[in-house]
Structure formats: structure tokens, C-alpha cells
């Protein structure tokens, strides 16, 4: 019994990383209508920045949230205006998608050039700290990830529901031209939602640096996991995306325990496809969002 609880908890903690990444994907998809395939690579990039500020300047990774996340937001704005602004105005979404693929490989190789292929990880003094209760052991750092994931979801949710620009983001993801008609600068609205998506990559990057060892190839896999999480949770719903991430983490841990570690990927991608076939709107997505032709 306690081993099952342990598995579920570990799954939730692993899944919180997927959840943060999926919320970012969901935001970017909302306005740009592409799967931002470079999201994982951006996460790895910010993990390296966290690693750097830890190794070079001794800055605690959680303290570096204060620098990495705002920096990621600015990087997001810059990327949008440099790369995606013109492509986002085209009807053909493939241009944006290809740009994202290009960006992914460019940043992958930039990381390889700057930080080499050696996997990195942080040696944090308190990384062994555990909570032990009723025979269940939970690392504080992983628990903090769950906190980051919920914190991110709440912040994004409040932004979308309660702020003027957030309302415009939701409106633009429904009908971009209609926002323009009202005098709303829809380019800026897209830029903001993209930048928040990248800021979330910053959050996930810090989280990744604290618990994983990572290398330059990690990004693509991670983007795909986030995509699976998003498909499970359903588009257009912040907490759905988070829930999808947590669920994917649990599925992976259950698969590892009951059928063996080698089966993790088979199980998660199998479930991914089953969900797409039978529940294309996801488990928590808005019904009617995926329209039949």
C-alpha cells in the first residue's frame, strides 16, 4: 500500500515539471496556433542558466527564479518580435512551426557549443533533505516542484481571468481579427502570451536544474512529454494542462513499477494516442473546442 502511495506521489512530483511545460505550450498555442516544439529546449536552456549562476556565482537555484524568470520573459518578447511576428500574421501556420523547429535545433546546438555534451546537474547542499512520514519519503526539492507548478498555474489563471490583457489573450485565441476590430493591438497580445509561455519555460528550467541531470539533447523529449500532457489535459484550460502533466507523471511511474522501466515510453505514448483517438478534446478540455468537420 505504502509503495503504491509512494509511486503516486513520485509520479505527481515528476508530472509537475510536465505540467509547467504544458501550461506554457497551451498559452502559446492559444494565440499562435502552433505546437511550440522548442519549449523543451528553452527549458533546458534556462536550466543551464540556473546551473551557471549556481556554479559561477553560487546563487541558490530558488533565488535565481527572481532573475531567470524575468529574463525568460524578456527573451520571449525578443524571440516573438525577431522570429515570429511576421510568421504569426500568415494564414499558413507551418511557417511558425518550422521556425520553432529551427529555433529548437539552433538552441540545442548553442547549448552543446557553450556547455558541451556532458550532462550537468546541481549539487545543492539541501538536495538530500526528505520528509518522511508513514513510511513515505518525499524530497523537499521535488515537493517544491509541485509548489512551482501550482503557483504557475494559479498565476497564469489569474492573469487570464482577471487582467485586461489576459482577457484580451483569451479573446484573441478565439478570434484574432475581432480583437483588432476593437482597437486591441493583437500583435502585442500575442507577444505577451508568447513571453509568458517562455517565462514558464524559465520556471520549469529552474525546477529541472534542481532535481534532474540534463544535457543538450533533453529538450526535444521534454517538449514531446509536455505535448502528451497537454493532449491528456486538453487545450484551452490552464488547470487541465497541469492535471495532464501530473497524470502523465503518475502513468510513467506506475508503468515503471508494474511493467518495468523499459516500458515507460511505450505506455505513455500509447495512452497519448488512445486519448487522441477517443477523447480528442482531452480529459479536462472544453467540449466543443475540437470541432468536427
Amino acid at each position: 500500500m505504502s509503495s503504491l502511495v509512494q509511486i503516486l506521489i513520485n509520479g505527481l512530483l515528476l508530472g509537475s515539471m510536465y505540467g509547467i511545460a504544458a501550461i506554457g505550450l497551451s498559452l502559446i498555442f492559444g494565440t499562435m496556433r502552433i505546437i511550440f516544439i522548442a519549449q523543451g529546449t528553452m527549458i533546458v536552456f534556462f536550466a543551464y542558466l540556473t546551473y551557471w549562476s549556481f556554479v559561477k556565482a553560487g546563487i541558490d537555484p530558488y533565488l535565481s527564479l527572481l532573475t531567470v524568470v524575468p529574463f525568460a520573459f524578456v527573451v520571449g518578447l525578443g524571440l516573438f518580435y525577431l522570429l515570429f511576428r511576421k510568421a504569426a500574421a500568415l494564414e499558413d501556420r507551418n511557417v511558425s512551426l518550422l521556425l520553432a523547429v529551427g529555433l529548437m535545433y539552433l538552441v540545442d546546438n548553442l547549448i552543446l557549443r557553450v556547455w558541451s555534451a556532458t550532462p550537468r546537474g546541481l549539487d545543492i547542499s539541501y538536495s538530500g533533505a526528505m520528509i518522511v512520514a508513514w513510511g513515505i519519503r518525499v524530497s523537499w526539492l521535488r515537493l517544491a516542484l509541485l509548489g512551482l507548478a501550482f503557483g504557475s498555474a494559479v498565476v497564469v489563471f489569474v492573469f487570464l481571468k482577471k487582467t485586461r490583457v489576459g482577457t484580451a489573450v483569451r479573446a484573441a485565441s478565439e478570434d484574432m481579427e475581432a480583437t483588432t476590430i476593437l482597437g486591441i493591438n493583437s500583435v502585442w497580445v500575442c507577444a505577451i502570451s508568447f513571453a509568458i509561455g517562455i517565462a514558464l519555460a524559465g520556471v520549469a528550467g529552474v525546477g529541472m536544474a534542481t532535481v534532474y541531470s540534463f544535457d543538450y539533447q533533453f529538450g526535444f523529449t521534454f517538449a514531446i512529454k509536455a505535448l502528451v500532457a497537454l493532449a491528456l489535459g486538453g487545450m484551452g484550460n490552464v488547470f487541465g494542462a497541469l492535471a495532464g502533466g501530473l497524470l502523465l507523471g503518475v502513468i510513467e511511474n506506475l508503468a515503471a513499477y508494474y511493467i518495468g522501466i523499459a516500458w515507460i515510453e511505450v505506455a505513455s505514448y500509447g495512452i497519448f494516442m488512445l486519448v487522441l483517438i477517443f477523447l480528442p478534446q482531452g480529459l479536462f478540455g472544453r467540449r466543443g473546442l475540437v470541432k468536427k468537420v
Partner: protein
Amino acid sequence: MANQLLEVKELSVAYGDVRALWDVSLEVEEGSIVALVGANGAGKTTLLKTISGLLHPIHGHILFEGEDLVQLNTKHRVAKGIVMVPEGRRLFQALTVLENLRLGAYLPKARADYDDSLERVFTLFPVLKDRMNGKAGLMSGGEQQMLAIGRAVMARPRLVMIDEASLGLSPILTRTIFELIVALNVQGTTVLLVEQNIHMALKICSKAYVMKTGHIVLSGTGEELLADADVRKAYVGERGSRL
């Protein structure tokens, strides 16, 4: 001429190589209702989209209170008081009625008058107040049209351009919507109306233009055009029903 709020002068628009408007000129007097009628594909929507800055002309001028708008983007035109109610309403269906209205008052000047505007909209369309917190997409067609107009009113427009307000509405609802457009006009908002329901449009407007394949082919007061035999035959029909 009297006090013209909007003057369109020899406006030509093309989609790629396909010319959609040919030297179109029209005038909208301050405080009036002007109707723009004609068959599908005549260029009415193209003209409205060009006036609001979504399309760019190959030549011609759009003067608003004497100032040429051609170089301004949609945002600046909305700020000057030109607001379009697009064809098909284009509401944000998943957002609440109030959120839709709030987005109408997005620009700083309109936002400053938000409370007044909201009261004005709720007085014109009391049903919107009752449905305030409901999703826009769950309302009936007539209510959605009211919300679309209300959303434009939130922007504090000097000129509202309404594209096919009666589309898909029952005759009774169409009448209601037209009465509300007149009420809006009486309060001082100038209206440029694109309509399929030509009979109704000609009855409430002070001036009308008839468009055909990208040209203005006829203009006059509403009564003149209603009396015009050719217009009756081509557009209004025997009993004054829709096309």
C-alpha cells in the same frame, strides 16, 4: 455640404490582382444614418473593412472630420471613434457578456468612460444586464446581435458601422434591432449601415448608396430609393421582403 463626419473619396481596393472596389466615394453626415445596400459580393463589407483599417486601399482617401485616415492602423481609427460591428457578430463566445463589453472599452479613452458606457449599453439593451455573467455563446441570435452592437458602443464611437445586423434574425427581432439602431442614432451616434434587408434599411436611413460589383451605382435619400422602380425591382421585391 453639411457637416460631413466621414468622406470616402475615390477609394479603390484589391485582393491581390482582383479588384474589389472601383473609385468608391460616399459621405456620411454627422448624426445621420446612412445605408449601404446591394447584392452579395458588391463590395459593401470590403468598404467597411477598408474604412476600419483592416484592408488597405490601392488609392483614394478616407477623411474623418477632414483628417485623412489612410495611414492610420485600426487601433488609431477606433481611438478616433470609428467602430465596426462585423458581419456574423464575431463575439468572443467563451467569454462572458461583461467580458465582451469590457473588451469593447479596451482603449484608454473608452476605459475612462467605462461606467457611463456600461450604463448606456444596459439602458439600451436591458437583456444584456440580466445575462451579464453568462457566456456570450449561450445567448440567442438576437441577444448576440445586441451584444455585438453594445460592445461597439463601449468604445465610445462617433461612427458605428454595422455589417448585416439582421442576418439570421427573425422579422420581429430584425425590427427590434432596427429600432435599437435608431435609438442609438437618436442619442447622437452616426451610423453607417450595411444591410441585406433593404426595405428596412431604406426606411430608417436619411441617405443610401447602392453598390454593384465594386461600384456605387446609385445614391439618394431613403424615400427616393424606395420609390425608385429599378431599385424596387432589383433589390426590394414585390412586397418589400428581403432579397
